[in-house]
Structures are given as structure tokens and as C-alpha cells.
């Protein structure tokens, strides 16, 4: 199973999930890239997007699964980008390794915009809201008889950083991705319901990364998780490193990377805090 890593931005944000799949099917044809079709009476090109994105969200880390038949994978991104509509950019095409069910968390940047500037006290109100032991909201559900179901948000939030900027408040959220997943819109709805003074006039949602657990990227060489804002390491706690710039430790992902010394390479491990540092546990809420 091959995977396309792509981003969705600008005008393409509003293309729905189904329309996006159809757009990709047509783009493969336009690019002259043959992909596997389904069997059966009405065969169509097989494409699958494991974690659908809500309409209106932008994303830098989308994944499309398909089976490319006769084109070398390195050629795929350039040819696809020439055939895709504005706002969709394929970054790379690779052989998928990690199964989708290990995509456990998603990192969202949610920007709350306020026309008259962030209200006084909004940042701390939101922070304390997300630090509560439990936060229950009603969500629409097709399965429930009444059409609604109650869900506690806190266990589904692995990390929540709240930072106020001049006119906006930025939430850096790591939320559970599936079984069950949490849509950040529900987090914003919780803010509207519980801290009405902090309710934004408008919200921008951006999906930054898919994660296997709150710190490790799900798929190899995904976008690096930037350092936590409040903890900047001046010195590398892991000690002195080899002169070739690699981190000196065998890479946990097992890849013989691009580093000149073979089994070691410069990777995110160097920038991650050492394992002893505490990470917030889901039940404890964000920092």
C-alpha cells in the first residue's frame, strides 16, 4: 500500500472528503499515473483517506492510500502537483509501513480570533477549563436514539497548550485521533459553553501532524514536532554528540538514514527531551 503525504490549504480547505477522493482519482488520470482499481461490477480507482479532515480545516499532514502500478514513487509528487487543483500539494509518495490503527493522536493548532482583541482573562480561563478533571459535552450521534451522546473531552486530550497573542489565542492541542476520536470543534464548543466571555468570533483550524503517541510522529519522517514552548533546552541533555552532526544514538526507527555514519542520523531524537522528563498524562490535563 502506497501513501501520498499531502497538504490541503487555501481554497482547497473547503473541498469535502468525498469530493477530495474524486479529485484525487481524476488527478491520477490527468497525471498519467495508473493506480489499482477495485474489483467487481463497477470498478473504480481505489483511494482511501484514513483520517478524514473536516471541511474548512487546513492541514499539513494528510495521507492518501492507494496502490501505484507502474510509476516510480519519486516521480509521483511532481506529476500529481501539476494535475491537482489549487491548494492541494503532494509532498511525497512512499511505501506505507505503520498501520493506520497506530495513528492514535493528532496535533491541531486552533487559533481563536477576536475582533476586539483577546478578552482579559480569557487565556487563563481556557487553560483552567482544559485542566479540569472532566469536561462533558453533548455531541450529535447517529447511533444514539436521541441523536445525541455525552462525551468527556479530558481523557481524549493528551496535551493542550494555551498561548495568548495580541488579537488571538492559540491552542496547541494533541487529541485522540480514532476509536474514539475528538474533533477540535467540540473543544471550541466547550469553551463557548463554559467560558462565554472567551468565546471567539472566529476560529481557524489547522492539522499539523499525525502521531502514534503524544510525542512520536506516526509515519516516518513526518513534520518535526516543534519544541514545547515553555521548555527550551539550551544544552543537549543527552551529552556531547559526534562531530558529523548526528545524535550519536542508534535511531529508534531502525532506518539507516542519510547521516554519513550509517546507522546513526540527525533526527528528532536529538531535539526531544530525554525520556526521564514527565509528560502530561491524559487524565492530568494540559500544562
Amino acid at each position, binding site marked *: 500500500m502506497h501513501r501520498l503525504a499531502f497538504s490541503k490549504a487555501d*481554497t482547497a480547505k*473547503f*473541498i469535502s472528503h468525498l*469530493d477530495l477522493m474524486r479529485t484525487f482519482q*481524476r488527478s491520477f488520470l490527468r497525471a498519467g499515473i495508473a493506480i489499482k482499481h477495485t474489483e467487481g461490477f*463497477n470498478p473504480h480507482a481505489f483511494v482511501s483517506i484514513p483520517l478524514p479532515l473536516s471541511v474548512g480545516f487546513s492541514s499539513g499532514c494528510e495521507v492518501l492510500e492507494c496502490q501505484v502500478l507502474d510509476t516510480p514513487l519519486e516521480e509521483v509528487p511532481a506529476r500529481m502537483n501539476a494535475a491537482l487543483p489549487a491548494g492541494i500539494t503532494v509532498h511525497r509518495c512512499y511505501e506505507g509501513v505503520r498501520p493506520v490503527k497506530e495513528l492514535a493522536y493528532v496535533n491541531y493548532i486552533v487559533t481563536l480570533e477576536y475582533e476586539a482583541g483577546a478578552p482579559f482573562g480569557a487565556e487563563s480561563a481556557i487553560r483552567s477549563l482544559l485542566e479540569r478533571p472532566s469536561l462533558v459535552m453533548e455531541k450529535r450521534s447517529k447511533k444514539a436514539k436521541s441523536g445525541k451522546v455525552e462525551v468527556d473531552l479530558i481523557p481524549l486530550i493528551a496535551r493542550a497548550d494555551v498561548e495568548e497573542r495580541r488579537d488571538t489565542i492559540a491552542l496547541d492541542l494533541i487529541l485522540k485521533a480514532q476509536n474514539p476520536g475528538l474533533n477540535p470543534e467540540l473543544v471550541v464548543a466547550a469553551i463557548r459553553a463554559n467560558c462565554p466571555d472567551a468565546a471567539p468570533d472566529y476560529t481557524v483550524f489547522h492539522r499539523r501532524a499525525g502521531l502514534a503517541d503524544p510525542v512520536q510522529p506516526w509515519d516516518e519522517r513526518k513534520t518535526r514536532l516543534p519544541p514545547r514552548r515553555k521548555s527550551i533546552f539550551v544544552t543537549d541533555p543527552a551529552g556531547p554528540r559526534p562531530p558529523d552532526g548526528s545524535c550519536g544514538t542508534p535511531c529508534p526507527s531502525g532506518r539507516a538514514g542519510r547521516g554519513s555514519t550509517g546507522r546513526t542520523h540527525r533526527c528528532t531524537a536529538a531535539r526531544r527531551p530525554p525520556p526521564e522528563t514527565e509528560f502530561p498524562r491524559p487524565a492530568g490535563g494540559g500544562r
Partner: protein
Amino acid sequence: MNRTLEHILPRVQKPARYTGGEYNAVVKDRRSVDVRYALCFPDTYEIGMSNLGMRILYGVMNQMDGVWCERVFAPWGDMEEEMRREGILLYGLESGDSIADFDLIGFSLGYEMAYTNVLNMLDLAGLPLRSEERYGLAPIVVAGGTCAYNPEPLAPFVDLFVLGEGEDVSVELIQLYRKAREECWSKEEFLAAAAQVPGIYVPSLYQVSYKPDGTLDQVIPQEGAPAVVTKRIVQDFDKSYFPVKTIVPSTEIVHDRVMLELFRGCIRGCRFCQAGYAYRPVRSRDPEILLKQGIEACKDSGYQEMTLSSLSTSDYRPLEHLCDGLLEWCEPNKVSLSLPSLRADNFSLGLMERVQHVRKSGLTFAPEAGTQRLRDAITKPVPEEDLLRTRRTAMSRGWPSVKLYFMLGLPTETDEDVLGIADLAEKVYRAWKETTPNPKRGVNITVSTAWFVPKPHTAFQWEPQISMEEYQRRVKLLREHMKGRSIKYNWHDSQTSFLEAVFARGDRKVAQVIETAWREGAKFDAWSEYFDFDRWQAAFAACGVDPAFYANRTREKDERLPWDVTSVGVSKDFLWRERQRAYQAVITPDCRVQCTGCGANKLCPGGKCDA
């Protein structure tokens, strides 16, 4: 993207239709263009993007250096509300710029019920509705399309109408516009010069007066404008522009496929059909060119469906050869071909089988009238034996469902003709019973009737539309006689057809009613979510206009008709002769059997049409 637009879009349905950014959408650098054209379709994105004419004009104008043509569609109610509240004016999809700043704004008028949307879009753009309230050269409001053949109901709002095929005349109009701007003409000077371009009708240059009985008295052209404006056609259909590289929408639209235009015009001359007359003379495209265009368009777009479109595809002489060529490419590339508008005969059946080999969907026939007598009167060439024979063959080969389309209210129709529809449906059912290999499977026969609307530039342009009560009586009569569980009967809503009849043959007095109704909230009249007949009745009353005067009145032979100022090439005498023959139930042979002198051939170079 505009920040306010980004704030609004998550709140509306199907936001992707308001963003642009589709594959092959033409984006030019604002600074490098000197003419900006807003091509407006007065309906939603899904409907407008399915329109081939829009794509053709879009491509023709964007091919011109220094011209940027952008698309504009009518925003749905929820989006319109947001736009008005946030102060966003109607914008072009490609740039996001407000179209009030453009040079030319062109409306494509495909059907009469879109007229209130035209006004609504002008208002949303922030422009005055009336031509006389817009000063200066920019923007000039232009309109074209089928409804432009009777432009009078929109005359006060539109600066100039383009009649006929716009591929050549749009280019000429833009060049004239450039000259006017360079030499600093006034708007009046520009319009007077535009009226001299063949195919352009400038309503403000015609003084219209009425007789005491309400009919037209005189229409006096000023400033040297022509007494009659004749439509334009492309000189060489083979060479005329076809959008091989066309926009592929990222969201779902109604007709999402490659459309190949086989030929324009129609040899049949069905007396009720405006398109058949209006697109004459008949001109076909060379099949080799079509083959090339079709395959290239599929490759460029990634579409997996292709339609061969024309008014009567069976009449395209090299049809089999073209289908062979297309199928040779389409089958291995998994592109499915569809051929609507085929005649009900065995040849077409064989063709359809080859083309639709994956799944046999239903067959559709349009006999239009229930009895042979009436079919002869309207010159619809569907002999009953042919229809039944084809049905038998179709059913034995496994086509399980059939749709039959008819019209009620055709001239010379009697109750006997109405009941003929029920008879025909019954015969089709019996034919199925006789020939089906699988009776347990059942059959779906759907009969649909529409209320006939007489259209300008047809043989029936003098006829009255039957009254609403009479239409409903005939529907009831038919319903009572339509028996059988396998036969389903759908009848078309009457109120929009009545308004269509008013607008189709209306004059300038109707324009005031349209504006009044719009001010009261009328828009999207073709959509049941918005159409409100009471509002229209109130608008007619408020303006002192009687709609029955336009819809239900028989015109006299020598009455001056509002659309006499335009010509589609077919002479009025020919149409009157056809009308007389209809009343005598005499068939006029089709153009291939014998040329009947309609007059359209004079538009062709050399005076010879391609029938």
C-alpha cells in the same frame, strides 16, 4: 483568500462552490490585463458549471491577450445572506475581486425563470439595476443565450444583447470596447457603435409605443440602429473553439463530464421547438475533429464520462463511425459514453447497446403527443409502429424501464389526444407483456407530461397557452384513465410554466413586474424552495399588468410581436405557413428529404446549409 470570505464559508452549505481554485481555472495577473469580463450564469454553481456555452465563451475570451474572463454564479440563499451582512459584493471566482469594478458583465440567459436572479446578481454586485442609472463605460451589462431572442422583458436592465453564437461576436465586442475606452467615448457613443455590429441589439436605441389594446404599435430605431437584428453564427463550425482544456470542478455538479457538440441546429422542424429553429442552419463537425477533441478532453480532465450532445443525435450522419472511433479509445480507458437525444428506432437501439454495455439503465422516449394525428400536427416524427417495435426489441434485450415524455396543451389538442397518451402507455405495457423473457421482474413505465409553453420564433408563437384550469382538467382526465400498477404518471407543476409563458412572449411592460417581484424577494424561481406564485400575482397586480394577456392570448397574424426586432434567420412567413399546416395536420418533410425554404440558409456563407 479574502479574510471575511474565509470567516463566512464555514457557515454555509457546500462552501467549495464559492472559492474557485479548480483545476484549469484561468488565473491571470491583474496588472497584465486591460479588459476584465465577468461571465455570469444566473443560477447556482452546480447548474452553471454544467453549461457548455459558459465553458466555450470562457475559453474564447481568456485566449485573448490582455483579457481576463472570470466566472460568477448566483450564491445560494444562506451565502447571499452572509455576503449582505458582511458587506461582500459579488465577486469573480478566479480573483475574488468585486465585479462592479470590471469592464463588462455578461449574463448567459438559458431559461426565463432565471430573470430575477439576473436582477439579484446585479444588486449583489452593488450596481444599479437599470441601464439608464449606470453611467460611464464601465461596467457595461451584456446578455446572451437562448432567451435573448426575446430580449424585451429584460430590456431596461441590460445595455446590449448578443444574439446567436457568441464565439466571434464576443471578440468583436471586446475590441470595440477597447477602442471606445482608448478614444474616450461616452456610453451612448459606444452603444450606438455597438448597434452597428451584426448580432448586437441595443434596447435603449429603440422607441417602443403601444396601441390602446396593449399590443405593440411601433418600434422605431434611433441613431442608425438596424430595424431587425439578425443573430450571428460561427462561420466555420469545424474551426470554432472547443474547450479541450476545460475547468474540472472540485465539487459535485450536475453534468460532470466531457460534452462533445456534434452539430448545431436540427433538420426535423418540430413546430413547438424553439431550439430546433433558433440554432439553424444545420452545421456539423467533422468526425475526425470530434474524435480528437473528445479524446484530448478526457485525457486532460480525467473525466470518465463523455456525452455526445446535439438536438437530435441520430441525425448526425457519421454517428456510427464516430462511435466506433470513440469506443476504441474509451473502452480500454474505462470512459463511458452516453448518447442522449436519440430517435426511437432499431439502429439507435443497437448503438445504445454497444455503448451502454455495462449497465442497462432506462430508455427515454419523447413522443410529446398521444395520437398520430397530433404528432403529425406538431411534426414530431415518431410513428407509433416504430415506437412499439423499438420497445419490444428493447424489452426483449433487457431494458426494464422506460420513460415517456408528453406535453399537454399543444395546439389543436382534443380530449381524444389526451386519452391517446394513456392508450400509448397501455400499448407499451402490453408490448412488454408479450415479449419479456422475465415477466416476474415487472416493468417500470413512467409517463411525464409538461404544460406546453409557446415560444417566440416557432410556428406556435401565435398560439395561446391553455389556461391553468384547462391544464389541470386535462391532467385529471389523464390520471383517471391511466391504469395499471406498472405505469406511473408524473405531471409538471403548472405555476412556473405559466410564468414562463408570460416571460417568453413578454414585452417591456413585463420588465416592471420582474423588478417589483424581485424587490418583494423573488429569486431562484426555478427552485421550489424559493418560488412563490402569490408574490408574482401581487407583483402583476401592483404594476397593472395582466399576465393572461401574454400567456393565454392568441396573436393576430399581422400583430407586431415584441421579438420581431430580432431574427434567428428563419422567416416569419415560413413560421406562419407552418402554423397553417399544423392546423391542417400536414407534415412538413425534414430538411434532408426536401428543403422547405425556412430562410436560415442565408446565414451560411454561400447560402447553403449542411442538412
